[in-house]
């Protein structure tokens, strides 16, 4: 049937193909409409706002690239970006350092595996804002958990205000984020681990490869895609970090934990410079897209590997 159609009427095939394409388009139309209305249009509006002096109140006026020129001189934004990168590197390493062992631990069925999986994953279903509020209380020096507990157990001579200086405050946030996010990363990594064929591992064992060699030569390369996914999610999430620094630290102590998004928020909704905030958002968007592309390229499928 098919061959007859092809030989007798190439023109009709073209129409059929194009008809199929049109139907395909029809199917994806709802999704396209969704993306256009909720992503493309707002993105276009943000881009347009970034070219204007757009105060919250009063008239806005077109200023061309002035906002972008101002960003170049905005040292506090670049400091915030620097801190954001620092935070991203530290927190990503921390998350993987915790999530990978957990994933290996819960990958194979063993007694109580489901209980462990649930327990480790549980914090991931808590919203970031709620988790921040919870930890904000845990970290409170007077009525919280950590400082009073350490004091009552005699570990510290007086109650230590964990949020008063940079190092303890920063590492408290890292601990909170790892607690909150590691479970999610663990699940992603677990699916990657489970997709590695067992016979490969067995063959390597027969060839005399130790656990470390197997991990390096089999597990890691075969988990490239999973790792790429987990890494991009973690990096993108960390670059966009805001809630925990806003709720727990208010950007403190002494503005040392202002992230890029926090700075955008401040410019837009504290100083009411919406146009400038939009320009900062565009810059951050470009940086984020570039970072994601770099990661995809680094973790691309090597030649010859299927």
């Amino acid at each position: 049937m098919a061959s007859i159609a092809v030989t007798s009427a190439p023109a009709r095939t073209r129409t059929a193909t194009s008809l199929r394409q049109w139907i395909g388009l029809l199917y994806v139309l709802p999704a396209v409409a969704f993306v256009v209305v909720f992503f493309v249009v707002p993105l276009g509006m943000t881009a347009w706002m970034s070219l204007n002096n757009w105060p919250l109140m009063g008239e806005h006026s077109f200023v061309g690239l002035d906002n972008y020129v101002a960003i170049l001189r905005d040292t506090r934004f670049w400091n915030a970006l620097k801190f954001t990168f620092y935070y991203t590197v530290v927190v990503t390493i921390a998350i993987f350092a915790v999530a990978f062992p957990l994933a290996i631990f819960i990958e194979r069925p063993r007694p109580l595996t489901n209980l462990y999986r649930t327990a480790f994953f549980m914090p991931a279903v808590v919203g970031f804002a709620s988790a921040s509020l919870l930890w904000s209380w845990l970290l409170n020096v007077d009525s919280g958990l950590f400082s009073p507990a350490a004091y009552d157990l005699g570990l510290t001579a007086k109650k230590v205000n964990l949020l008063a200086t940079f190092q303890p405050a920063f590492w408290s946030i890292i601990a909170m984020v790892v607690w909150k996010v590691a479970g999610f990363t663990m699940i992603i990594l677990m699916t990657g681990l489970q997709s590695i064929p067992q016979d490969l591992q067995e063959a390597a064992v027969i060839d005399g490869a130790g656990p470390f060699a197997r991990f390096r030569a089999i597990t890691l390369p075969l988990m490239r895609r999973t790792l790429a996914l987990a890494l991009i999610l973690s990096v993108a999430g960390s670059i966009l970090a805001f809630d925990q620094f806003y709720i727990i630290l208010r950007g403190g102590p002494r503005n040392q934990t202002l992230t890029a998004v926090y700075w955008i928020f401040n410019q837009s909704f504290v100083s009411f410079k919406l146009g400038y905030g939009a320009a900062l958002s565009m810059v951050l968007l470009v940086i984020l897209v570039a970072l994601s592309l770099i990661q995809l390229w680094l973790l691309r499928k090597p030649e010859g590997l299927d």
Partner: protein
Amino acid sequence: MKTMLAKLMLAASVIGGGLQAAAAETANIWVRADGSNFMPRIVDAFNKAHRDQIKLDIIPNAEIIPKYGAAAAGGTAPDALSLDLIYTPSFAAAGQLEDITDWAKSLPYFSSLSPAHVKTGTYKDRIYGLPFSADASVLIWNKKLFKQAGLDPEKGPTNWAEIEADAEKVNALGGDIKGFYFSGNCGGCNIFTFTPLIWASGGDILSEDGSKATLDSPQLRGAIDLYRSMVKKGLVPEGAQTDTGANFFAAFAGGKIGLSPSGAFAIGALNTQYPDVDYGITFLPGKDGGWSSFAGGDNFVVTKGTKKIAVVKEFLDFAYSLEGQTILAKYGSLPVRNDIAKDALKDLDPRYQVAAEAMAKGRTPYSVVFNDLINSANGPWTQMINEVFFGDDVDGAIKNAQETMQSIIDQAPNK
């Protein structure tokens, strides 16, 4: 069918008649949540006594500015709002407010209205805001703890040395009891309660017109040394260093703090919510005596181009009457008309009189970028107070704040 039609016509005539009978207009007014105690009362009293009506919306404190901005952009702004007075210059500068100079000056009691409010309500010699509610900063002390510490429970400190000495004595009671409390990471709290110490000693942090930051003064340095010394001696709880204002009132209300700078609002709040705390109220003193206060509260502003301006004026007139001022005072605001303040307060807690006096001579810094300079949790003022009270490099922190504040002032769009 026929009966239904008749009913409809009847209904229509009723509605029509109703509309005719009430040619009265309704104006929409917004207030921030801080005013949620007195504002509904005064609106109710107005609505009962007038044909024109006020519809009141209460908006969370942090949201009222963005929400108003969005509503103004969309053409659905309220006819008027009760606005934190420090925002009046920036709103006026944005061209958002109706010029009410002529009406204001025609009020017979114009000269008795809170001068601090009128000053912040004035932009380029025109009046855009008039006082509505008021709060003045004062110093409160715990009489019970003073007594236990062997101090005279009826006498509050009158200069900086006495503040420190009293705090030390109370602190010596030990246990959970601490001598002094302030919110060490809250710009808004400290502009309210810390700058009066500087003003009372003859210094200031901004020039009169808000065009210069003047942080580099011996008075500021002296006030900082007072707080630093109390922190160093352990008279202040650890939590103060990171308190962004959540404990501004609650710390003293817990009954374990000897002294704390606070506001007139604390009188009503303590009396109703913490009747067991026995406290005294005095002025925030200067280094060697004298006193000053921050005059805070709300200005009443009218949205530019509103058609309901007559109703709005009628309402404001009512709020300025003795009846209106008494309602305000009874439910948590100080009166804003100095000529009848005493009458409005006469049946209330006598401690209000101290606060009212503080209010009458209160000051308010003037700036179109007040939020960026002072209130913002990440602004230069908030950063500086935290560094100078708890950090090591006082001079560097002051210098840094001076430069940042001046650059924010210089970059302001409408100076």
